């Protein structure tokens, strides 16, 4: 008798079909793996299960009852608890305060029942194997592993029957991971259900009873775990066979070293040290760096441009023999960085698109203290034409544009400037297919002018389509570089998921 049954769920975001008639079910007392490559629809499915998103069509049954899960609080009351990667704890408060947040047992209706809270906390922490955690410590001072246990314990206290864990092991050591697995097994033995979302296939094979595999919004496989199931099987289900090419690309000739990154190490957002990483970017090429979500690509880009603390190693520019240490250095040395978060970091949302484009070149289009409007407008028109963007958009506030057009504005800004190196983090995230290929073409133009482009992306097809050379970042380190054409989709996936021995670096 399934505790959760989801039938023919469909969900669209704008024009994109995120879930296409998906069936999914969970039984009491099992650990279920949910697999799929980036963007396959795993998060959407789980957000629907936890009430953060509602499906366009389809039916959800909880304990045989048809339910409308339209807010997280209601899902929680039905026992469905999400434990997202960012654990949603209040760092400034103590462990015990976090465990009972919003659900404190009360005394005389206005007071917190300290005694009961203490005993329940201890009991629950023992249940998740966290008896050594100090209940009075501020959560922010604890390790990621302990914080994870607290997040799980909180869900238990909230009456959780179903635990959805999104990449819970990405910040854990092997020992901590094993501990987490024993907690998951214990939850299972108590008749609870765990959904385990992970890119780490060894772990998935070790812990899960069953798997669901999503690809492009469709549920492509549902299989029992057993000795016959291998990592290669899982990868095959995840990637399918149809490989499309959305990125027309004419290879560009590559030249001398433009930027050399040597033995760079840095800490990712979870505090894990990544690196050492060594590679160089040549003139006239597009160098792609790819890897699974959370492997540290964004952090790598931030470290290169000096936004993130560099633990060791160096970033050196060929023409000036200069080291890049701060974002100001990066700017002066002609590195143009376009962050993943274009709304937050890249654009002044209330400002006209045209003004956004010319922000970094104001000096060159000004005479004395005034901006030459005519010249500014001409430049804007020229770039709008190159980028296939309607000229009317130039006078609209940047915040009103679609994601694709916003990205064009940010790119134009970098192209107008005299950057010799362009570093782009997830340049086509959330952008429709048409805009994707226009942006890819533009990057090609930029490279052909003798400049260098570094693209960091989690989308394997994008990387394979636009790059002249490819580096693959995994938890084990950096693989490659691979020449364009030497790497196909299956082989790239095999490297990312570690199902193939690292091979012929060149």
């Amino acid at each position, binding site marked *: 008798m399934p505790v959760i049954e989801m039938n023919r769920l469909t969900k669209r975001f704008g024009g994109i079909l995120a879930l296409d008639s998906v069936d999914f079910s969970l039984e009491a007392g099992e650990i279920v793996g949910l697999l799929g490559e980036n963007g396959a629809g795993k998060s959407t499915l789980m957000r629907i299960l936890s009430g953060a998103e509602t499906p366009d069509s389809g039916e959800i049954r909880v304990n045989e009852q048809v339910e409308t899960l339209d807010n997280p609080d209601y899902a929680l009351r039905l026992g469905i608890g999400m434990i997202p990667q960012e654990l*949603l704890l209040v760092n400034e408060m103590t462990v015990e305060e976090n465990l009972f947040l*919003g659900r404190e047992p009360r005394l005389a209706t206005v007071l917190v029942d300290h005694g009961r809270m203490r005993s329940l906390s201890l009991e629950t922490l023992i249940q998740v194997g966290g008896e050594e955690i100090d209940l009075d410590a501020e959560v922010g001072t604890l390790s990621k592993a302990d914080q994870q246990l607290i997040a799980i314990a909180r869900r238990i206290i909230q009456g959780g029957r179903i635990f959805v864990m999104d990449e819970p092991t990405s910040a854990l050591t092997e020992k901590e991971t094993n501990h987490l697995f024993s907690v998951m097994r214990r939850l299972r033995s108590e008749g609870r259900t765990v959904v385990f979302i992970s890119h780490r296939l060894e772990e998935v094979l070790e812990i899960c009873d069953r798997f669901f595999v999503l690809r492009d919004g469709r549920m492509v496989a549902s299989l029992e775990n057993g000795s016959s199931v291998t990592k290669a099987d899982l990868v095959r289900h995840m990637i399918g066979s149809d490989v499309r090419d959305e990125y027309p690309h004419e290879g560009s000739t590559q030249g001398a070293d433009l930027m050399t990154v040597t033995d760079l190490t840095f800490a990712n957002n979870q505090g894990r040290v990544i690196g050492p990483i060594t590679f160089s970017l040549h003139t006239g090429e597009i160098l792609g760096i790819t890897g699974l979500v959370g492997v540290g690509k964004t952090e790598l880009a931030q470290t290169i441009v000096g936004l993130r603390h560099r633990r060791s190693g160096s970033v050196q520019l060929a023409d000036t023999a200069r080291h890049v240490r701060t974002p100001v250095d990066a700017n002066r040395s002609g590195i143009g960085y376009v962050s993943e978060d274009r709304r937050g970091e890249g654009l002044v949302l209330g400002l006209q698109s045209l003004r956004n484009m010319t922000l970094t070149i104001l000096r060159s289009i000004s005479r004395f203290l005034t901006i030459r409007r005519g010249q500014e407008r001409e430049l804007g028109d020229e770039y709008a034409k190159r980028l296939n963007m309607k000229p009317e958009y130039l006078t609209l506030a940047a915040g009103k544009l679609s994601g694709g057009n916003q990205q064009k504005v940010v790119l134009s800004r970098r192209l107008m400037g005299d950057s010799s190196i362009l570093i782009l983090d997830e340049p086509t995230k959330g952008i429709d297919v048409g805009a994707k290929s226009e942006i890819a073409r533009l990057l090609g133009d930029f490279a052909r002018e003798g400049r260098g482009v570094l693209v960091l992306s989690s989308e394997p097809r994008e990387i394979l389509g636009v790059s002249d050379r490819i580096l693959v970042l995994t938890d084990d380190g950096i693989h490659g570089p691979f020449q364009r054409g030497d790497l196909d989709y299956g082989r790239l996936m095999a490297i990312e998921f570690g199902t193939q021995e690292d091979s012929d670096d060149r």
Partner: protein
Amino acid sequence: MRISKRFPFIDRYLGVVITLIALNVIFALASPYYWSAYNLTNILDHSSISLILSVGMVFVLATGGIDLSVGSTLALTGIITALAMKSGVPTVVAVLLGLGLGAAIGLVNGWVIARFNVQPFIVTLAMLSIARGLTLVISGGNPIIGMPEGFMRVFSGPRLLSNGVYVAAIVALIAGGALVGTPLGRALRSVGGNAEAAYLCGINTKRVRMAAHSIAGGAAAMASMLFMAGMDAAEPIAGLTTEWMEAIAAPVIGGNTLSGGRSFVFGAVLGVLILSTIKSGLNMVGVGQHFQQIAIGSVIIAAVIIDSLRNQRRQGGA
């Protein structure tokens, strides 16, 4: 560092307590009159109004907000309470009316902030102007002199340690307990620490913000009672600058963060004592009021620098 990790309480307040002791030693050495029973009780007396305002402010700071209007609220509730008493309303009712009005002004602040998602800074800045204007209109700019005997007995009381000090101490004790030991107190701090986490744990973040501002308004009204008792008059220009500035500064000096989450009443108590000590001590050694303002401003800057350095250390060490 191990000890401070085991006892966050010590880590949090050690620096402030040492500063307070050091200031007392310095002033006692500089002036023979400083360390006298008369002067020390005087310091406590002067602290009581600031303390109640600061305690209210701690609730707002906990949510990551700020309330600039408490000085004006103090003046308006004072005038209204005094007018009520003068027109024959029983003292108890008049006082309750004043406290209710203070809470209501705070509630309006909180409602606008939460309902329309506006910055607390600008909403309470506007309220500062509105409440002051109302005060001046209603009073015609004139103080209302002569409070009823019963009122004076409760809020002023015998000399040396006046009842105001006890009132302030009780308010601080209740507030400190509430912030740690009630669901509301925890909700307040969670909203300032991580509003999304609070929301997803089923906490009504809007209502919590409104409660915080309402408490700050009520506290301002309570401070107003002490103010009136001290002057034996309601002053339309009460709480014009120093009072509300100190109400914000004291919690910060005592280690509460302006960004919310880490907010405790005890820090505000220490902060108020430091400010009062500095003012009284500088008076004793003959430094004039104008120079005192410069000194207090400098202390505030030093406190926020220390707070910022601590935050960096915390983030670096995490």
